[in-house]
């Protein structure tokens, strides 16, 4: 699949502080790419370089093959962005705000109605933005990013400030966007659960470095399988299971036994169950544990000494 966004050794330092360190990222066309990392990891700085707002200290960004440093305007024509700072004029209505951007983009005024319809904001478009909730501003920001139907959308924390219903709507909307509009979505977030439900691809940035990238389903499949089980005496069970597999880990859900890569989870569950029953333990539940994006994230950021501030929403 050709790349909609490609960065090559992207680096940015602020005086002595290295904010982004040699990030080489590939966002395939029509992908929903979740860009993950804790606050301060370098997500926003990377996105700003993708948008041409910051000049890289080294490296390059290409949007559909266009070098952002050399052909910024041509590259910017292909991108719609929703940034953390929305930049709406509070004394103007939602429709007036969109109309200003439509004029600057040179797109017809009918585009304003179209994007308002898409984000279901037509009813509130005549109200001043100063009276909007944060969720409404997010939706209006998304509408503005879609003006002119750009093939690439860059969204910085798009679910910020949305209520649970709003988050669910946004999730469905973003998930369907590649199919409906043929668009590629690059979205940054620190909400692992949300990204897991939306993204087809992920990239994890830690301390300015891209520590993991790939198709989410493949990354999950590549993880070593685990067995989750509950017994009437987990402490005794843990001691017993240590003879069969690496030491189990006690969690709120029960004991988690990590298997060796390539091990058959069903066969392993049967072996462990037999050993527990023969030892006189009552087994309440046993089976393969579904692997999550959080597992992937924990694995790749384990070398980081600091406690990640990421939320498993």
């Amino acid at each position: 699949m050709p790349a909609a966004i490609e960065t090559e050794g992207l680096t940015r330092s602020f005086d002595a502080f290295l904010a982004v360190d040699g990030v080489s990222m590939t966002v395939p066309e029509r992908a929903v790419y979740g860009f993950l990392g804790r606050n301060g990891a370098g997500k926003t700085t990377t996105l700003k370089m993708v948008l041409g707002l910051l000049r890289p200290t080294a490296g390059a960004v290409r949007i559909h093959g266009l070098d952002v440093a050399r052909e910024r305007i041509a590259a910017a024509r292909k991108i719609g962005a929703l940034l953390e700072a929305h930049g709406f004029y509070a004394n103007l209505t939602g429709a007036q705000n969109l109309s200003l951007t439509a004029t600057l983009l040179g797109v017809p005024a009918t585009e304003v109605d179209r994007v308002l319809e898409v984000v279901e904001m037509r009813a509130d478009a005549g109200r001043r933005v100063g009276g909007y909730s944060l969720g409404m501003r997010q939706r209006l920001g998304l509408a503005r990013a879609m003006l002119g139907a750009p093939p690439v959308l860059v969204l910085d924390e798009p679910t910020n400030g949305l209520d649970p219903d709003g988050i669910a709507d946004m999730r469905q909307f973003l998930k369907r966007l590649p199919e409906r509009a043929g668009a590629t979505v690059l979205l940054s977030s620190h909400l692992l659960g949300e990204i897991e439900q939306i993204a087809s691809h992920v990239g994890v940035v830690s301390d300015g470095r891209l520590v993991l990238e790939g198709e989410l389903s493949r990354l999950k499949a590549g993880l070593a399988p685990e067995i989750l089980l509950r017994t009437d005496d987990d402490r005794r069970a843990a001691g017993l299971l240590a003879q069969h597999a690496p030491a189990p880990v006690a969690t709120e859900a029960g004991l988690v036994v990590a298997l060796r890569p390539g091990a058959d989870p069903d066969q392993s569950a049967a072996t462990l169950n037999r050993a527990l029953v023969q030892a006189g333990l009552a087994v309440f539940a046993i089976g393969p544990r579904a692997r999550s994006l959080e597992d992937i994230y924990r694995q790749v950021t384990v070398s980081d000494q600091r406690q990640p501030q990421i939320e498993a929403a």
Partner: protein
Amino acid sequence: MLAVLSVELRKLNRSLAPVLVLAGPGLVALLTFFIVLNGRRATPWDRLMEGVSGVWAVFLLPMSVTALTALVAQIEHGPRAWDHLRALPVPRWRFYAAKAICAVALVVIMTALTLLLGWASAAAAITLKPAVAPPAALDLSKLLLLNGKVVIAALLLIAIQLWTALRFSSFVPALALGIGGTFFSVMATRAKAGVFSPWQMPFNMFSPEAWRVDTALALALGGGLGAMALVAVVLHLARREVL
């Protein structure tokens, strides 16, 4: 460029800019009304209107420029709109050029309004007190020429204030600079060094000393210092990163 200008005008139209444009000239008009009404004898129109322009040039013009450029800049600083604007497929210099053009245009409008309202308030006072009616007619072309020079002499001041207001997201540096510059130009109108003060250049057009007028004109008009400074402001702001 026209699209960027029209967007800038729409934003200004919905801001407090119209109030600000009326405030300075309105104050001069109010002052003129009472000066004429309390006058003991008739003053020629030329001297009367020169007084109106002088009050505008010495204090209210630099203060209005300070407020106006701060307003033009805060329209974007306030909602943190720079990232959105600068990410659009529009050459960045156009955003700054549009702001510079609007600032200069508003100063021209305010100067014209000062003359118009100053004349109207003087005429109103004369109607109430015919004894102070000016004996001779107004030489309009001379007055317009003088005020044209005032605006050209103010270009450097506009450039400096606009750069400061756009460069810093807080309005305080621009305000402090404007108040400070105006203060010194008012307090030291006769100081020799004042001829080089951007805040004093507009008022130097009224100086009885020819060298002051000539120097200010040579710098502002002949040297094109103000226009060059405005171009430099636009280019510098377009190139710098907004962090």
